[in-house]
């Protein structure tokens, strides 16, 4: 039972961070219909930049956070302006491939500047663990989950009530109508990319504060696709529900199955198996909008 509780709590909290990365994906998908496969690369590069600013340059925490967020905004703007905007109205295959190229570039950039492969961040949160019944959870996990929830709340409110958020939803619905009502669609696209980069930067910082900055972050980014697939691509609530489910499945599955089948590393493959299962059964996810195609 203690084991079960331990796995569940770790699973849910890690899942919240996956949900955060999923949010970053859903942001772009919701407003521009672009599938951002460069998530892993973005999470990786921002974590390294944070490491560079905080540890290598030695700035205080608040200042390095601000700097990383500014850099993330700049990255988002640049990516949208120079990779995605020339491809507006191109087939979906090109849009996907361009983010793959981007992923390649970002990974290369990270190796280029930080060849050391592994680095530890100083603890950002108090190290004293929480005790919930017999289970022990480090505070970093809990804080990560709380921050994810807060960001989720902010984004949901923003999309529901803020002028720009409403414009973003409208863009996803009908670009032509949005343009006709005087909203520059291109600026909507840049804004969504900038937001998404900031969200993935925060997610990257949270994860790497838990497990250090490694190239495994790319795989974490890819794993979080299982969150968006399970939750439905265009749904924030889907992300926040599916994230903990994936985290739970990953931790409970590997915790219980590893002694039975005797294979290590089940954790890394469970989210991908979930992707395949979901695509077989309910391809548009739990909360996703089912698209009806017309010729």
């Amino acid at each position: 039972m203690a084991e079960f509780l331990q796995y569940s709590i770790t699973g849910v909290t890690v899942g919240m961070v996956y949900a955060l990365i999923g949010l970053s994906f859903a942001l772009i998908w919701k407003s521009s219909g672009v599938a951002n496969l460069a998530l892993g690369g973005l999470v990786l590069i921002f974590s390294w930049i944070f490491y560079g600013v905080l540890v290598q340059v030695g700035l205080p925490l608040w200042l390095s956070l601000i700097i990383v967020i500014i850099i993330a905004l700049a990255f988002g703007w640049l990516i949208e302006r120079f990779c995605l905007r020339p491809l507006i109205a191109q087939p979906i295959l090109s849009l996907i491939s361009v983010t793959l190229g981007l992923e390649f570039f970002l990974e290369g950039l990270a190796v280029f500047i930080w060849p050391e492969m592994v680095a530890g961040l100083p603890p950002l949160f108090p190290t004293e663990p929480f005790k919930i019944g017999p289970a022990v959870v480090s505070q970093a996990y809990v804080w990560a989950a709380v921050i994810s929830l807060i960001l989720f709340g902010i984004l949901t409110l923003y999309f529901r009530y803020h002028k720009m958020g409403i414009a973003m939803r409208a863009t996803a619905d009908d670009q032509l109508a949005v343009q006709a009502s005087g909203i520059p669609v291109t600026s909507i696209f840049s804004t969504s990319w900038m937001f998404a980069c900031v969200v993935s930067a925060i997610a990257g910082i949270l994860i790497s504060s838990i497990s250090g900055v490694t190239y495994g972050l790319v795989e974490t980014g890819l794993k979080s696709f299982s969150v968006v697939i399970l939750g439905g691509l265009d749904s924030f609530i889907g992300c926040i529900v599916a994230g903990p489910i994936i985290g739970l499945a990953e931790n409970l599955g590997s915790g219980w199955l590893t002694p039975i089948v005797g294979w290590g590393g089940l954790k890394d493959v469970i989210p991908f198996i979930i992707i395949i299962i979901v695509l077989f059964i309910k391809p548009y996810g739990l909360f996703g909008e089912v698209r009806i195609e017309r010729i």
Partner: protein
Amino acid sequence: MGLPCGTYNYSYAKDMAILRTKTHWALFIALLVLVFTAPLYWNNYLLGVANLIGITLIAAVGLNILLGYCGQLSIGHASFIAVGAYTAAVLTGTFELPFLVGLICAGLMAGLVGLIFGIPSLKVKGFYLGIATIAAQFIIIWFINHLSITGGFTGIAVPYASIGGFVFDTEASQFYLIMTIAVLCVFLAKNLARTRIGRAFVAIRDNDLAAEVMGINLFYYKLLAFFIGCFLAGIAGSLLAHWIGFMNAEQFSIAESILYIGMVIIGGMGTALGPILGVIFIRLLQQGVMFIAPMLESAFPALPAGFASGVSPMFFGVVIVLFLVLEPRGLAHRWMLFKAAYRLWPFSY
């Protein structure tokens, strides 16, 4: 269109011929002679690069059928190559079956695995399919690393290919083996695109709903595309296994899969020439980067330490993005433009 001046079609067979004029034939035979006499005057390094290009070409032709003709995105192509490579390695190494049996089984095995992961393509497309194939990449590599028959993380040794009593143990002999199969595959792919199957693929790529309304069986043709694409990947994998002589799952990372997509895009999706140009372009660039990066590193000590390993993915990322933005139809389209221009030269049109 795009024919030399004075070429007329007197029969349907003539209209459909790949090689139309005597010049075509002469150039084609000259190219074949040039390729197949290459081992006489190339050293082992050049032959090694050529072998890698040949193997990559077979896999890229497969991906081109899947992605370029049928429009089904696969971001897990390297893992299908891995399935073929390991099938061949286990069959010829552990069970000591003949090379040709291993080759065919590798193709079939990869094709079958491709079918399994291709099934989601019936329900979803575009991004969803891309994610399904990314999942395939991770699941397949994970299984390879954890099954005992594949040697796990340590890898598995593979014997040289041999047909009858002849062992392909030099770069030159392997060059003949690989190039023969590569030429056959390119020829088959070129012809496949001109048949009923190929036209069905193109119809599915352009609009699968419309294709279904016209009476194309989506279930059959989409899975057929996956089977053919992955079959070729498996063949390439088998050759790769025998060529390298040692298999380790690290050779089949997701980066390699992305690179394959890059090759097809850079070459030109949905053309017969595309994969050839794309593969040569990317593999030669890789060799160039591998050659130049250490030199630059020693010449300029101020460069960051990760220069040699980081510069090539950065470079390829930029190349893929640039091609998509500036020339989405790839090198094959450039070649067509060039051909049209020199046929009319010195007139502008």
